[in-house]
């Protein structure tokens, strides 16, 4: 019997993922010995793990290393996204502890699950094999199903978990079928080899099997990033899930979905660009319009932000449709600033909320701006950024996404995007109108700020304002991380 030649294993490529998984497993063990009142310390331990992973990523910037016979790569694109994932995970963990205590579901398993979800996202961003991307997506999804239903005593949280699970499993089927058809058409699951096979054999849109594979994979990814018409699960899941997990879910997994989507379309299937850009054009317009118009009618602020996150996925799809360097850099920049503004907004929602997810209607914010001036200003900064008003980072991000579309010749797409962005100002401003121009109906409890919350809000405000005022540095980083 001949021996199996094990290919070169480059552990340095997966070192960040390994470290984070080991930290998560260690936390699972430590959790058993920690008393229920002290579970918050697990959060700090997991943040330490995240910081360690970040420190490992920074020296790797600028290099591009492959490993495990081409199933994974660590390049600037992957590192940029990994930093977004780690930041969003750390910020969500900062606001988790107090929320869990209030809702009475203070279980330590939430921290390892968040870390495992982050590992899944990191694998999605750096996977260069359809199998790696798929398994990363599954690690992420399974953790998210549990995180959405984590508040077991709340029936809405149960509904969110179950609904996400059923629809997510269904969409995974589409993704996998698409991957299978692509494999059938090209004979490989490695992204670089798919591209070279297509280039060498002149396979293009004439091979409908490949086109069908591309469409089905797009369907799977569009579900994960909550693009219309695959967005039906989003409002229910975002409303029912524990609020810190909603914050996490609306940023990290969305970025991960876009990262994997970008790698598959831009690196593996650039030959099909006419096909997929027309597909994404429709998706982008539908997503922006449906998200914004439905958000106009929402009374519950979590639902409103859920629809707004759908609309934001639409803006990112605009940059995607362009498919050029400016648009792709815009995606990266926007994802980074979106992480700060959205998690910041959700942190305020947690502070205002009461046990049992009460106080989450827009009308509950009446008078909030006067009772808590500092928090009110912070909330306004986040909402302005979400609406895309300068000098917040959201404006610069949208500017680059839309200018990418104009450069690529999609004038109408950019026009629709700007119109949508203008419409969205209405529902963000409505919250501010309630905060500053309406009399409070009941007295506000004095919000108890913990150091972790202050830190999270501080990071968020800095993360929104600094890239907004000084976009040059961040854009340069984003441009270096572009796949092309």
């Amino acid at each position: 019997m001949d021996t199996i030649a094990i290919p070169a294993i480059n552990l340095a490529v997966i070192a960040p993922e390994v470290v984070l998984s080991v930290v998560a497993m260690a936390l699972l063990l430590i959790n058993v010995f920690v008393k229920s009142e002290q579970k918050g310390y697990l959060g700090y331990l997991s943040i330490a793990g995240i910081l360690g992973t970040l420190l490992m990523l920074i020296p790797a910037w600028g290099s591009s290393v492959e490993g495990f016979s081409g199933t994974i790569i660590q390049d600037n694109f992957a590192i940029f996204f990994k930093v977004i994932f780690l930041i969003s995970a750390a910020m969500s963990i900062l606001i988790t502890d107090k929320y869990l205590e209030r809702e009475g579901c203070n279980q330590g398993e939430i921290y390892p699950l968040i870390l495992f979800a982050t590992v899944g996202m990191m694998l999605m961003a750096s996977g260069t094999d359809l199998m790696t991307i798929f398994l990363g997506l599954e690690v992420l999804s399974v953790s998210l199903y549990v995180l959405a239903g984590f508040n077991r005593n709340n029936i809405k949280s149960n509904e969110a978990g179950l609904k996400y699970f059923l629809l997510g499993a269904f969409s995974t089927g589409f993704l996998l079928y698409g991957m299978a058809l692509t494999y059938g058409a090209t004979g490989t699951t490695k992204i670089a080899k798919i591209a070279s096979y297509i280039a060498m054999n002149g396979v293009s849109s004439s091979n409908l099997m490949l086109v069908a594979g591309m469409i089905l994979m797009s369907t799977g990814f569009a579900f994960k990033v909550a693009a219309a018409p695959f967005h039906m699960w989003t409002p229910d899941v975002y409303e029912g899930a524990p609020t810190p997990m909603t914050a996490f879910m609306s940023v990290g997994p969305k970025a991960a979905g876009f990262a994997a989507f970008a790698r598959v379309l831009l690196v593996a299937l650039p030959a099909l660009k006419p096909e997929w850009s027309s597909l994404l054009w429709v998706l982008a317009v539908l997503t922006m319009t449906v998200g914004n118009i439905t958000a106009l009618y929402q009374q519950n602020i979590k639902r409103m932000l859920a629809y707004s996150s759908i609309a934001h996925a639409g803006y990112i799809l605009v940059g995607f449709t362009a498919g050029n360097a400016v648009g792709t850099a815009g995606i990266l920049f926007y994802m980074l600033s979106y992480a700060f503004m959205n998690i910041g907004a959700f942190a305020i929602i947690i502070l205002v909320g009461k046990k049992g997810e009460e106080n989450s209607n827009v009308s509950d914010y009446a008078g909030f701006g006067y009772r808590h001036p500092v928090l009110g200003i912070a909330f306004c900064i986040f909402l302005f950024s979400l609406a895309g008003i300068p000098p917040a980072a959201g404006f610069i991000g949208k500017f680059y996404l839309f200018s990418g579309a104009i450069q690529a010749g999609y004038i109408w797409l950019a026009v629709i995007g700007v119109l949508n962005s203008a419409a969205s100002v209405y529902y963000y401003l409505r919250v501010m109108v309630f905060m500053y121009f309406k009399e409070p109906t009941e007295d506000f409890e004095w919000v108890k700020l913990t150091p972790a919350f202050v830190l999270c809000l501080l990071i968020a405000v800095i993360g929104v304002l600094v890239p907004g005022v000084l976009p040059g540095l961040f854009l340069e980083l984003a441009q270096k991380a572009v796949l092309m």
Partner: protein
Amino acid sequence: METLFFLIVAAIAVICSLMVVTNKNPINSALSLIMTFFCLATLYVMLEAPFMAAIQVIVYAGAIMVLIVFVIMLLNIKSEAGRRTSHALFMGISVGLLLLVQTWYLLVKSSLSSVRGTVDSAMISKVGHTELIGKSLFTDFLLPFEITSILLLVAIVGAVVLSKKKL
């Protein structure tokens, strides 16, 4: 002869999978699902993938189905009462038909050109299917194989978190 056999097995698989979703008694659904798995295993054998066929029977038709039947018994799921709305049925059928037409178009209009892999029946009978799978699992797909272990761990933790009575 082989085509005829394939058609028979495929027809049984389709009919059984339809019965999985149309049966009102959950136990009958589960039994139909086992039958579907057996048909799939037969298809694997016809594709000269005996290892996959064995795994299909042992893991899916064996272990997983036993679990499903146990869950049905433990939860004491009753037969489903009443019919679902015809509205959803109509939508489902129309979307299904649309997909069928699209698939048909795909098969007729397109050149379903594809790559011929290096593994053929001569190689399978010489080296062995199990060894071939093992080799690619531990060389080309080593990392995905290891990620699966994380996936299983997450699933176990998740199941405990969501369903344990007292945490």
